[in-house]
């Protein structure tokens, strides 16, 4: 993979992640978490200070017959205090240690066997959230893009989901990411898009991207769609843009020579290697840059195709080697609305799109790093 491709994809993923992180400080992933997030945000704005008077017991409430030593002995340990507080309903409190996992909609199968699971422990590496993807599967044929219901992965508020479409081209027998605006699109909620536009406007090199409002039914997923252009492009630049426009306008230019290679089939020999390298790189970047350190990178993949079975067969072995859940699905088996969001050209043209389902996990209370 070329260095500029790697840079292009990583800077876009980084921008997406940065924006989501920034918004995660103020907005909840779940509608039930709005009140909590509001308190959390207020708490942050006020300098992260808790009013100690909430925890002070008035002297007149302490019985006279207790002396200070007895009071000291009666004082609970930190663990006991956490345990007690976790079982109390404290809607104004913002500390994750005293919120319990069921309160944030955790439905991990192992939760029932545990006595008390504070939310803060879910954020530990090796906590319940790390094993959750093994228990719940994405099944796009049945319309399940996000099988989770918790505040961390569920995204029921439909604020942070996105679909990032990019496409691969074969130029002079080399596979590259097309960084043209027409071939790069990020679809998301109004909230994320507005911040993304602002983020991208600061970096002129990333300005070549199109923004779209995401369909509500896809708004809880975080997905990257890689479209594989099976046509070969001899040299893709501004001249090619003009070349492609001229015939449709019934125009001819003697200065621009239309290359016959433009419509030739692409050499797919190097594609599997390039694709697996690209997917690995995306997974790695999402794991390190996503809005949570618990991120698993890519949870699963789907290869959606129309007719191009040869191409699918050529890429599948290398994708299977990536050790990710993968399934090849013919486009007609998916609902039309989903195909519209993933790659609408598949409805009419032959082609292949690889959908990477990124781990949508986010930290409760937002990422302050």
């Amino acid at each position, binding site marked *: 993979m070329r260095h500029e491709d790697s840079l292009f994809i990583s800077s876009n993923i980084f921008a997406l992640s940065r924006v989501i992180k920034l918004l995660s400080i103020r907005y909840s992933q779940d509608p039930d978490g709005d009140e909590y997030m509001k308190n959390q945000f207020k708490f942050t704005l006020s300098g992260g200070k808790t009013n100690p008077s909430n925890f002070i017991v008035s002297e007149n409430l302490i019985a006279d017959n207790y002396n200070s030593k007895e009071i000291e002995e009666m004082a609970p340990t930190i663990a006991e205090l956490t345990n007690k507080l976790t079982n109390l309903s404290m809607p104004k409190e913002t500390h994750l240690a005293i919120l319990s996992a069921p309160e944030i909609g955790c439905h991990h199968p192992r939760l029932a066997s545990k006595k008390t699971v504070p939310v803060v422990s879910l954020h530990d590496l090796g906590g319940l959230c790390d094993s959750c993807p093994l228990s719940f599967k994405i099944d796009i044929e049945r319309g399940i893009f996000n099988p989770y219901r918790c505040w961390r992965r569920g995204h029921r508020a439909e604020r942070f989901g996105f679909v990032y479409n990019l496409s691969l081209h074969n130029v002079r027998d080399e596979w590259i990411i097309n960084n043209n605006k027409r071939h790069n699109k990020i679809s998301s909620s*109004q909230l994320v898009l507005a911040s993304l536009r602002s983020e991208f406007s600061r970096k002129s090199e990333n300005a070549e991207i199109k923004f779209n409002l995401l369909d509500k039914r896809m708004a809880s997923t975080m997905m990257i769609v890689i479209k594989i252009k099976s046509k070969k492009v001899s040299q893709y630049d501004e001249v090619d843009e003009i070349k492609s426009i001229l015939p449709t306008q019934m125009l001819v230019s003697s200065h621009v020579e239309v290359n016959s290679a433009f419509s030739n089939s692409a050499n797919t020999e190097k594609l599997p290697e390039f694709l697996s390298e690209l997917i690995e790189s995306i997974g790695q970047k999402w794991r390190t840059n996503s809005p949570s350190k618990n991120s698993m990178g890519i949870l699963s993949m789907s290869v959606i195709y129309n007719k191009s079975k040869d191409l699918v067969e050529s890429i599948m072995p290398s994708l299977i080697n990536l050790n990710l859940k993968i399934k090849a699905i013919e486009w007609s088996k998916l609902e039309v609305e989903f195909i519209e969001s993933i790659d609408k050209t598949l409805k009419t043209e032959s082609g292949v799109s690889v959908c990477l389902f990124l781990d949508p996990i986010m930290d409760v209370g937002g990422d302050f790093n």
Partner: protein
Amino acid sequence: MNISRGRVLLSEFIKFSDKSIHLIKNKFLEFTRRGFSSNKIHWIYFGLLFSALLGGKIIAIKGPFDSISNESFIVAILFAIIGYLSSNRLSNDSRISIPLYISSIIIILLLLVSGFTGIHEWPNYYRNILGYITLAFISLWAGILAGDMKSPPWMGNLLFKQHILPQMKKNDLRFLHWDGEGIISIVEIDDVIMKWYESRKMITINELTLDQFSPVCLDERRGVITPGLEQLREIYSIYPTLWENSMKTHLELLEKGYKRICWLNLLQIIIPKSPSSLSQERKWMKTNSNFVHINDISRKFSWPLPESVQISEHSMLTKPLLNYCLSEEDTDDLQQIELEIVEQLFPKLESRCQAYGNMLRSFTHLLVVLRQEMEITSGSTKKQCRISITELSQWFKSLNLQQELFPENGRETYSVNSEQWSSWVDKSLIQPATVFLRLHDLLSEEVTSDDNDHQGDLNSGIAGLINECTRRVIDTASFRPKDNFDNDDYIISSFISDAGGNRKIAMLVGIWKMLLLVSLLKRTEEVTI
């Protein structure tokens, strides 16, 4: 040789005659503008009365008044009224008063000469004419004496013209005029036509009220303009107290004009051009100067802040400040001068000039209110206001590159008056976190509203601003000095208190920015914080 010498002489002569003509013309103009002293009027009046009495009394049988009829009463009343009503004009404008004066002297001479010689030998007709003319002139001068010129300001005006103006010229002082459209000009003392209107109790310079002017010192060599009020006061002090009292109105009006120019300088020059200077202490402000175009020449304008930026008048609080200071017209529309400032500050933004204009107006009011707060408070609040001004100024200058924050001219935009800012500033200083949160929600609603799908650029601008403000607060709030200074309690505590102060300042700066934006897009009554 002789020919060339002749040419030189000729050109010298032409130059000399040109200069002479110019000098004579100037002297004449100066003379015509100078007006007439009351002494001269009193003397001429006395002379007329005396000569009429004398000329009339010596040959009583055949005097100038022996055959004038009852209509003389009407003539006397008519001329007295004319004299009374035009007292100011007749006494101030030498083009009229000089002929009147000369005519009066001729009449006096005629009366005296004829009284001692043989007026009785004159035909009745001539005697009657002389009688009527004498009566008319006596009545006219009486009217003039009873008119405007009877008042002390009239006297003061005369004294000012005859004594102060020459002194001002000698001390290289000029008048600075700042008109209702924001255009600044310098009026040379030679070009000053000063009048006192008794009926309107008004003094004018070249038909413009005196309170639009202020004395200035112009350093031609360095091109620097500084206030000249102190020098004028010094000139005043050399005259007797009685004179000073007579010219009190002039000084008061010029002081008013000076204060007006202090405000206009603040609103029209300092805030748009160097707003950060408003955060400085007053003693440093004196050295600040900005370049302005005066009479098509770029000059350094060094003018102090108003003595007090406290706004107490209701109309000043509720109206756009610049409109209020420029003119009394009751309009809230953007003035041409405001659009011109916007054009200078943010070139190439013609399609968004209305929004930028309203932003400039709100920004001006906010800065004045913050400065006011800075002057009346102390300690941390003063510091918060000072840093707010500095940071807002830097942000305001960067708006040129943030077009996405401003809607196109088609969309209605609004501005905020000083009264509203005072209330918002008070509330924000007390409860910054709550206000910040409310503004955050208000602006987020604007971004996520389905009605605003079409305004992608504006949404991105708003989102960018919210993110920037929030990030800044969180960055300052999450400052943890303990990691670095584990063993030094003193440093920890001082850093913690600094972090708290910085967080509040970051929050306040965010509040001002968000308020400026939200109030640009929504009506004030829709902005509940």
